């Protein structure tokens, strides 16, 4: 039963991905002829333009030529060549992806842990000062734009109290004597962007966990567990939290997918060489092949994260198996 369920979910994910690939092709055709930006180069001759078009395969018919080429190339992970760096788009993405995963992974993990922990605290102290304080704090970080938080962090911890680097993923031009010092250097660079990321995500996790806990705590089984003589803190940790975690798991998995693309502003501010910064530069340079590639990766991230959330839910909530 569970195998069939998983196969169904995986098949749905593949269908979604195929749709994204097709949509991605037409999205960039609608934007117009990419060679038009080269016509801004003075003195370009029509022959040169025609050569450019045939180089990019833009002279072929749309469906039978360009689309077929595109599907074939995408299937073999050939996402084209960046117009700016002249490197393969796939290589650009492969270089940037680990940095984004590191930043987003650390940020999501910290935000989930801290947010849900604070949510539990607030829900069990509902209506008291600590609850109101936490609610105010989390609404503030939720509402504040992440780039503003990033700038404030740079201002305070890199400028006024210069203890942390203001940007980049590691100190440039340094030969590291060992991998330990290299990791330490990266970790130092990671602190500020990861903090900004955590603060950006924290509020949602806190609010979801708090309201989920408040709901669960009014359930009958909580009263029954208390009636069995179980101390309150164990009622909370063993029965309330596992039930309240369910909506949070979905949110955090889906968020992880979405945030891979959403780290654009934070990565730009901290010059973090991840997918976000790659996207930002590609937009500035009208680098269509790169944009097409990162869009595909972002979508694949969201689809994969959703699949992961389904699997986690399946594992955490026995009721899912029955349906």
């Amino acid at each position, binding site marked *: 039963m569970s195998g069939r369920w998983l196969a169904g979910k995986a098949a749905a994910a593949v269908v979604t991905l195929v749709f994204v690939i097709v949509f991605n092709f037409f999205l960039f055709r609608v934007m117009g002829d990419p060679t038009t930006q080269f016509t801004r180069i003075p003195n370009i001759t029509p022959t040169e333009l025609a050569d450019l078009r045939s180089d990019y395969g833009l002279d072929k018919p749309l469906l039978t030529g360009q689309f077929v080429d595109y599907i074939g190339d995408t299937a073999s992970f050939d996402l084209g060549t960046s117009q700016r760096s002249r490197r393969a788009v796939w290589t650009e993405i492969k270089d940037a992806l680990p940095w984004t995963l590191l930043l987003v992974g650390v940020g999501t993990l910290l935000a989930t842990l801290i947010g849900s922990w604070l949510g539990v605290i607030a829900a069990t102290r509902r209506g008291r000062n600590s609850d109101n304080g936490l609610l105010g704090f989390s609404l503030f970080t939720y509402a504040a734009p992440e780039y503003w938080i990033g700038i404030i962090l740079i201002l305070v911890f890199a400028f006024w109290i210069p203890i942390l680097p203001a940007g980049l993923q590691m100190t440039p031009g340094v030969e590291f004597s060992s991998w330990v010092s290299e990791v330490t250097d990266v970790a130092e660079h990671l602190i500020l962007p990861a903090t900004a990321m955590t603060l950006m995500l924290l509020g949602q996790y806190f609010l979801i966990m708090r309201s989920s806990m408040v709901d669960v705590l009014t*359930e*009958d*089984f909580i*009263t*029954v*567990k*208390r*009636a*069995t*003589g*179980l*101390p*309150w803190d164990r009622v909370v940790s*063993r*029965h309330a939290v*596992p*039930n309240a975690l*369910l909506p949070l798991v979905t949110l955090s998995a889906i968020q992880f997918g979405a945030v891979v693309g959403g780290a654009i502003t934070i990565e730009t501010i901290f010059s973090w060489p991840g997918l976000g910064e790659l996207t930002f530069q590609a937009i500035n340079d009208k680098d269509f092949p790169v944009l097409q590639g990162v869009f595909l990766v972002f979508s694949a991230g969201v689809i994969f994260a959703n699949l992961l959330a389904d699997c986690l839910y399946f594992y*955490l*909530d*026995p*009721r899912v198996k*029955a349906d």
Partner: protein
Amino acid sequence: MTSLLEVSDLRVTHRGSPIVDGVDFKLDRGEALGLAGESGCGKTTTALALMKLLPPALTQSGSMTLRPEGAEEPINLGRRTEAGMQLVRWRHISLVFQGAMNSLDPVQRIDAQMAEAIRLHSDQKGGKEVGRKISDLFKTVGLPVSAARRYPHELSGGQRQRVMIALALCCDPSLVIADEPTTALDVVMQAQVLQLLERLRESLGLALILISHDLGVLGETCDRIAIMYAGRIVETGPVRSVFDDPQHPYTKLLLDSLPVIGGERGLAPPIPGAPPDPGSPPEGCRFRPRCPYAKDECLADPPLREVAKGQSAACHFAPWKKWPDPRAAAAAGKKA
């Protein structure tokens, strides 16, 4: 013989408004007491107050003394702290809740939930011993032992209520409080669960407080019954005497409102009006505004006093030898 549980002047208030307003009762070992009344009259609140499980917005006072079998000294529940109550809960008093649907943690297997309760109150730490205890309990309540490995949602409503009863018995308590244990079940399951409770009470010598708005359910199961109205007990006594010869107008009208099988067809007469708002209870007798027999005396609070053998009622005019027709009495009262 001293009683198992003695409750006197139990009061529960919410921001000064009385929810339970001075309830007294005694319960003997092995006795079944029925607590009846309309929704919102304070039945469930009384049950939760006995285990001190009320939400923090409610404050309770009054004395509650429990004398469980084998205990050297009576347990003064009223004075116990939260930590002290944790030792009493389930060990001496357990609870079967209304709505069997939500009474178990949905994401834990049933045996894990039972083992947790058993381990809390006994030295049985070994998995085998606990497992044997659980399968014994499942046999007692008539469930297949394999059901213990299941999750709550995999069982039917009736099975879940049996699980709750098994859970309530797992620490051999001397008192089980059953709050509307059959409300969410169909009639056949209702009868089965009631029979099970009855059988267990006899074989285990359990005392039972059965809370229900269904007088039929209480009549079948209980030795004594207490009728609650607006946070007070208005009448109490042996089930037969109260049903055959009610001594409080509320009880009388409540019984009259039951349809009689084989009797005349038609709608049973409802009691006009609604229960009072606990924030501003009426002066004197709480039932006065709805009572067809109310007179000027009723502006003074009637005490609960013995009016027949073992039967008490809180009405100035009890004992009632003969009940006048309520409609005629109400009409006469308006003229006067």
